[in-house]
């Protein structure tokens, strides 16, 4: 009786999950299909078409797509790098030291993630134009800290808090200097959290659209903004658009698949406290 009930529940759950999966994945699938279609077949809603690689040739070989990807890598990678350099010590300080208004500061950092980007992007645009950061790598890397830094600080802080302070004392007594302790004892312990939050931060930075749209133009062209180029003013090459989107999504997908296991554990392990 009970078994049957459990079984029925399982079936219902699975059906619901399948429905959700179809709902979530279908647009992606459709995008991939479009990328193989010629312009004439783009609007056909049947799954039957004549597959062609013309769109891929056009985008990957005959446009500046590679340079857009490189820009994205520089900006997102740079942003994550800066976040790690700044965020790990910040997380350590928030975890270990007592100072006035510590929790307020921590919350302030977190709150950067709450604000919609569009809210701050116009003032930022004006400031950036004035001080010459507009359309520069540094400018984008800087503004991406709003996306990547809070995430990294909060996850890594949880990891530091989980390390008992006596371990640091023990290492001190064992004759290690603070820097040696930090790199030899602490960094290995926060690594799962650091890797997963850095990766997630990278994906968020990679996917960011509003900031590069407003704060950069010709010199720095991340791929998210560049995709729009394939929507010409006179004609829309949906096939090429689909190719650009598909390829730009690949790094994130590959990364996420590679460390999928660490991602879930890394993010929930330190942050969730019993």
């Amino acid at each position: 009786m009970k078994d049957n009930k459990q079984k029925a529940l399982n079936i219902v759950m699975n059906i619901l999950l399948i429905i959700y999966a179809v709902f979530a994945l279908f647009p992606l699938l459709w995008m991939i299909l479009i990328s193989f279609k010629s312009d004439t077949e783009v609007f056909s809603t049947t799954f039957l078409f004549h597959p062609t690689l013309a769109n891929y040739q056009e985008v990957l070989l005959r446009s500046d797509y590679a340079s857009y990807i490189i820009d994205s890598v520089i900006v997102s990678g740079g942003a994550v790098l800066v976040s790690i350099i700044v965020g790990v010590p910040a997380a350590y300080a928030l975890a270990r030291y007592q100072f006035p208004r510590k929790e307020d500061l921590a919350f302030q950092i977190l709150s950067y993630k709450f604000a919609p980007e569009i809210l701050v992007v116009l003032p930022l645009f004006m400031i950036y134009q004035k001080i010459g950061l507009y359309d520069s790598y540094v400018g984008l890397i800087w503004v991406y800290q709003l996306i990547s830094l809070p995430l990294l600080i909060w996850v890594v802080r949880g990891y530091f808090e989980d390390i008992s302070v006596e371990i640091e004392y023990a290492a001190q007594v064992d004759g290690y200097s603070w820097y040696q302790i930090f790199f030899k004892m602490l960094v290995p312990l926060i690594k799962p959290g650091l890797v997963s939050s850095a990766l997630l931060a990278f994906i968020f930075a990679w996917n960011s659209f509003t900031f590069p749209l407003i704060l950069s133009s010709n010199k720095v062209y991340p791929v998210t903004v560049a995709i729009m180029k394939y929507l010409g003013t006179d004609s829309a090459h949906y096939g090429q658009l689909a190719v650009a989107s598909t390829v730009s999504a690949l790094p994130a997908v590959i990364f996420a698949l590679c460390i999928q296991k660490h991602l879930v554990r890394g993010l929930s392990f330190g942050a969730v406290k019993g």
Partner: protein
Amino acid sequence: MARIELENIKKAFGKVQALDGVTFEVKDKEFFVLFGPAGAGKTTILNCIAGIAMPEEGVVKFDGEVMNLTDPAHRNVAMVFENYALYPQMTVYDNMASALRSKLYKTDEAEIKERIQRAAKIMKMENLLERLPSQLSNGQKQRVAMGRALVRTPNVFLMDEPLAHLDAKLRNSMRTELKEMQANLGTTCIYVTHDFMEAMALGDRIAIIKEGKIVQIGTSDEIYYMPCNEFTASLMGDPEINIIEAEISGSADEYTADIRVNGDTVTVPLPKDGAVYEKIDDMGLKRAHLGIRPQNVKYAFEPTDGYFKTTVYSYESIGNKSVIVAECGAYQIRMIAPNGLNVAIDSDVYIRLETDHAIFFDSETKKYIVRYDEATYVALAASEMEE
């Protein structure tokens, strides 16, 4: 190998004064035990010696050299932490080798291996060396933490309850090992415990700590037989010493003590003893607290001459012997009895206090006044100090 001195150490955490003017000196090669209830400040003292905690006032000296501004790494102390503080990402072997691989205490790998093997043998954990701390039980972790300290040749070993999480059998054997080892290594050792058996067995001298202050420092016999106040007396000994309020009457020829038992007054004799009678005379002592160890309380289940009647509150075994607790109204009297007696709760029990072993405490200040055979114990303590 060093002489450790603490002078007037004060340390506060927020509003809590953890250490309030702690002063003591640990001699070279001495096994010094810090003993006191939880929260007394024992661990904080170790942290101050190790340099992990900075005292707000006072001086820490190693061999007469002020160490306050020396960081923990350069003090060359080996510390065993109460929560083990093992490095989770390293195997037991690497944990134990960590100090010897640091730049400061660099040792070649062959030597490291030899020392680790030796420490592992003492700690009975040769089979654990390749494991990670997460694969160890608490007792094993504690042995690793000890081992990590033992591979070193420090100025001083600081041990924070290193045997607390071991099972009873291992604890007993380790206690013996530890004492012997320390004597062989010839290294100063400061040892924190809240187990009075450990304190008595290990300590060359014991410091009793209460609320951040040193209450008494002395050899185990000194502290056991001549506790400086009721607090110390009650810490040392299990079951706890009986503290009984008494009215003293009589004259210099013969004094007696009146105690209250369930509303009645019982007069117990105070046998003649030079030092005791002299003190009572000198101070004109009318009231005192008598401290009588449970082994100095005799009992009978039939009315007996010289015994007074009370009722049994509880009877419980503590291993190879049992404790009878007798109800006496405002207080209870504990006494040692053999196992397997047929004692019913609330039944009558007749008690005689061997007052010729009593320790006298001031009824107001709770401080030590005098005890029977004082001269014997003073001599005993003095002979221990010479050893």
